């Protein structure tokens, strides 16, 4: 029975409308699906998949058509990976090109063709000079375009004003679109994806509207000059693509466990296009995001990541030389003595990470509890305004953060014209500038140093308020920027110290005059790496504890007597028991319906009879109403007074009775059980390693109660003195 047929009955569709428009119908939930904001049953999904596979393999021997079908089924995994790679790469390329253009739109416009960014506009021009290699007459700033003056105070003010206005416009559009169309598109997405991949259901989080809105608003958010990156959201975009293609194949759309394998691979593709590093993507997926990661998924993830990277390369957003976002080559080795400043940079990274995490969490808490949370649009506009106003005067914050990081990573050669490379050259030298080792810093470098210091403070402060707003935002690039700035400053400091005091003990063996010894660009890279490590831990902290984090420990407190456990579960809902009897003795459909209608049981235990109470099996709370509601369509003749049975064979009934209803297929005959003496640590372990949703508790062979995953989480929250009520949805 397809969901389409089920849904069409209530509205009495004429048969001619067929299945074309059925995607518009509300999908009728199938038995074995899960409710929103609940976890899946990993074991059930695994066994369903094994059953399906076994069925296909056995049928494939029957005929050639069945054999072809089995081959198609086996290959469908690779086809899905290919499609995911293609779409992710395309979307990443589109995002990169659009961000490039819109970031430059804040400052000026290309007169020959408005769709060119600054660099593209000046690509063919012959008027670029060595000192002003960015300027060309085809690309004009707004002040120059509107008033005709390029220099002067008036032009500066006008440029400033227009920069702020464009930034405000972009961020306003972004937050409005998110609010109206897809509220799930805000934030980074990585914590929620980790939650989903560990078995949680969040309907709509990886939907088509979320995909569209996230792509479109990500460009707007990054172009507005806010201190955020696009790497985290790209992972979300890739996972949405994964979810989209899963729905094409029933192998993945009907099985939540298999779907999550595909989503792991999609996450790898996302990181691969974000950084141009396929292997990095696979490692990220393996370490950070995935819960179940069988070896087969490793190869499929790599394939998806490769296809995505190749697609991005084909679109070629950066030009020939840049597929990897930050491409650097350092020619001088580093020395052991340099470990000291590297360790200092590591300490800086740790300190900054702690500061950032504490401050950001405190700010987010304030957003949740006070008036600030009621005006998300105003908040975004205000933060953008402040960012733009403070960022424009400093040339290092005015440009996009990725460009800033590239410049900081760059080694200074003869061909660089940036301020950071303004070293004093000996005019009498005969060798090319490239070859001269440590030179004293010129005024440009000192200028750059204090500007960079201001930029550092600005970035540290503003990122705390930016992350967590209701627009797509990533954390990787701002962290790297902070680290890169700090690293470069330290590198230049060490370099100048080595030049002016080359007779000190530490420098004597290492920095001989005439030898190139310190590469400030390398320090910037080390700093960026140090700072990238810390806030990544933020992604372990979902706002609600929905899953077992790696650091949570169970306690060895044994389970107390059953009444305590039961009353904990009953809690605020009063004295109603959480599960009810169903016996093997025949009951009628209408009795069951009455049972379901008034109460909301988590599950039903099926026993042999009310007297013996010997336990037979367990029925999920959600499955029973669905199975009863679906039954009239499956077995003809079933009415309200029909008898319901759970055994294999129908009970003997007089022939005048209506058709009995067999519900054995929803009965789980082998639920996991523990006794009431099992220590809590073991129970937590069982839940974590097997991926259970619920576990039955027995005492002396008789069923005592049920413990669910959320109960365990609440218990752990209580142990850690957190609020157990923060576990969602009783």
């Amino acid at each position: 029975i397809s969901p389409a047929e089920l849904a069409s009955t209530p509205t009495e569709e004429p048969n001619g409308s067929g299945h074309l428009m059925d995607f518009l119908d509300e999908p009728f939930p199938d038995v074995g699906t899960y409710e929103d904001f609940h976890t899946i049953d990993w074991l059930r999904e695994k066994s369903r998949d094994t059953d399906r596979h076994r069925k296909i393999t056995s049928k494939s021997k029957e005929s050639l058509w069945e054999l072809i079908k089995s081959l198609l089924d086996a290959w469908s995994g690779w086809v899905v990976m290919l499609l995911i790679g293609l779409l992710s790469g395309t979307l990443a390329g589109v995002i990169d090109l659009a961000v490039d253009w819109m970031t430059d739109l804040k400052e000026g416009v290309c007169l020959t063709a408005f769709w060119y960014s600054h660099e593209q506009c000046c690509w063919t021009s012959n008027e670029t000079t060595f000192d002003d290699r960015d300027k060309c007459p085809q690309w004009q700033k707004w002040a120059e375009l509107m008033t005709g003056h390029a220099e002067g105070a008036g032009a500066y003010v006008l440029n400033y004003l227009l920069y702020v206005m464009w930034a405000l416009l972009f961020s306003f559009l972004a937050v409005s679109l998110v609010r109206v169309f897809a509220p799930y598109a805000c934030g980074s997405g990585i914590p929620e994806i980790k939650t989903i991949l560990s078995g949680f259901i969040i309907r709509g989080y990886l939907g088509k509207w979320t995909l569209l809105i996230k792509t479109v608003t990500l460009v707007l958010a990054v172009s507005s000059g806010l201190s955020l990156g696009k790497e985290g959201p790209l992972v979300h975009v890739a996972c949405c693509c994964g979810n989209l293609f899963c729905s094409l194949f029933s192998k993945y759309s009907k099985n939540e466990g298999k779907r999550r394998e595909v989503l792991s691979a999609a996450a790898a593709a996302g990181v691969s296009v974000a950084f141009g590093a396929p292997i990095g993507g696979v490692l990220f997926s393996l370490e950070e995001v995935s819960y179940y990661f069988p070896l087969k998924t490793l190869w499929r993830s790599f394939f998806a990541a490769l296809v995505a990277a190749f697609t991005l390369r084909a679109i070629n957003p950066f030009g020939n030389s840049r597929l990897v976002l930050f491409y650097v080559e350092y020619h001088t080795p580093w020395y052991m003595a340099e470990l000291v400043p590297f360790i200092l940079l590591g300490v800086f990274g740790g300190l900054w990470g702690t500061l950032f995490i504490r401050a950001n969490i405190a700010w987010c808490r304030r957003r949740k509890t006070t008036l600030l949370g009621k005006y998300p649009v105003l908040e975004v506009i205000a933060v953008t305004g402040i960012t733009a106003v403070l960022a424009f005067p400093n040339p290092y914050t005015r440009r996009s953060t990725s460009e800033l990081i590239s410049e900081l990573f760059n080694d200074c050669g003869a061909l660089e014209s940036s301020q950071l490379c303004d070293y004093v050259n000996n005019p009498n030298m005969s060798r090319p500038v490239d070859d001269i080792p440590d030179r004293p810093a010129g005024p440009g470098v000192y200028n750059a140093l204090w500007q960079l210091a201001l930029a550092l403070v600005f970035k540290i402060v503003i990122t705390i308020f930016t992350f967590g707003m209701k627009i797509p935002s990533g954390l990787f690039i701002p962290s790297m920027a902070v680290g890169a700035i700090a690293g470069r400053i330290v590198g230049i400091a060490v370099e100048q110290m080595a030049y002016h005091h080359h007779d000190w003990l530490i420098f004597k063996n290492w920095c001989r005059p005439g030898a190139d010894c310190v590469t400030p660009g390398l320090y910037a890279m080390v700093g960026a790496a140090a700072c990238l490590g810390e806030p990544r831990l933020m992604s372990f902290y979902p706002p609600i504890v929905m899953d077992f984090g790696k650091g949570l420990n169970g306690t060895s407190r044994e389970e107390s007597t059953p009444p305590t456990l039961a009353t904990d579960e009953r809690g605020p809902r009063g004295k109603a028991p959480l599960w009810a009897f169903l016996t093997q003795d025949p009951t009628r459909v209408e009795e069951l319906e009455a049972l379901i209608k008034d109460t909301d049981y988590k599950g039903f235990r099926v026993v042999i009879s009310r007297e013996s109470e010997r336990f037979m099996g367990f029925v999920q709370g959600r499955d029973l109403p669905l199975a009863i509601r679906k039954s009239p369509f499956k077995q003809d003749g079933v009415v309200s007074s029909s008898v319901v049975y759970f055994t294999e064979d129908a009970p003997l009934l007089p022939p005048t009775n209506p058709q009995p209803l067999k519900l054995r297929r929803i009965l789980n005959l082998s639920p996991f059980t523990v006794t009431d003496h099992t220590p809590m640590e073991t129970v937590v372990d069982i839940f974590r390693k097997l991926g259970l949703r619920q576990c039955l508790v027995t005492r002396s062979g008789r069923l005592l109660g049920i413990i669910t995953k959320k109960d365990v989480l609440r218990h752990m929250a209580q142990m850690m003195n957190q609020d157990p009520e923060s576990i969602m949805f009783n």
Partner: protein
Amino acid sequence: MYTCIHVSLKNAKSLICDLLQNSEDIRCKCICPPYRDIEGQIYKQNVSLKDCNCLHVVEPMPVDGKDVEAYCLRCECKFEERSSATIKVTIIMYLSILGLLLLYMVYLTLLEPMLKRRLFGHSQLIQSDDDVGDQQPFANAHNVLSHSHSRPNMLNKVEHAQQRWRRQVQEQRKSVFDRHVVLS
């Protein structure tokens, strides 16, 4: 690099050729730093990869025969390629999608309530009790539209699907923006 698509119409062929293969899309860029009394220069030319070196690109050569080698040693030449057609198509496509979304957003938030008010009168657009704060889009949409005739055809299906979508978005908005339970 693109190849011209063979099209039967002569005019269309030349048009597509021009669109796809822009000869300006490749260049060789040579950056030469200051040398003695010659200031730094940047040279660009549309040459292929094999001709991308100092001797072919730096024209006119600012130094004489003996110094050419020394000068060229300092220069750095890079071959770069781009696809202007891709950039154009991408940006225009992005702007059109953005424009469509903005129009739809304006329609949903401003025009539709106005139209509904005019069609159904003020009495049916009463604010529901749990709308707090500013006006929520889609707040009364499904109440109002359920009064429409039940026509069993595609239009009705589209309306129903849209209503369902709006309700989902409203649920999402409640959990993200109002109760702050998801996504902080």
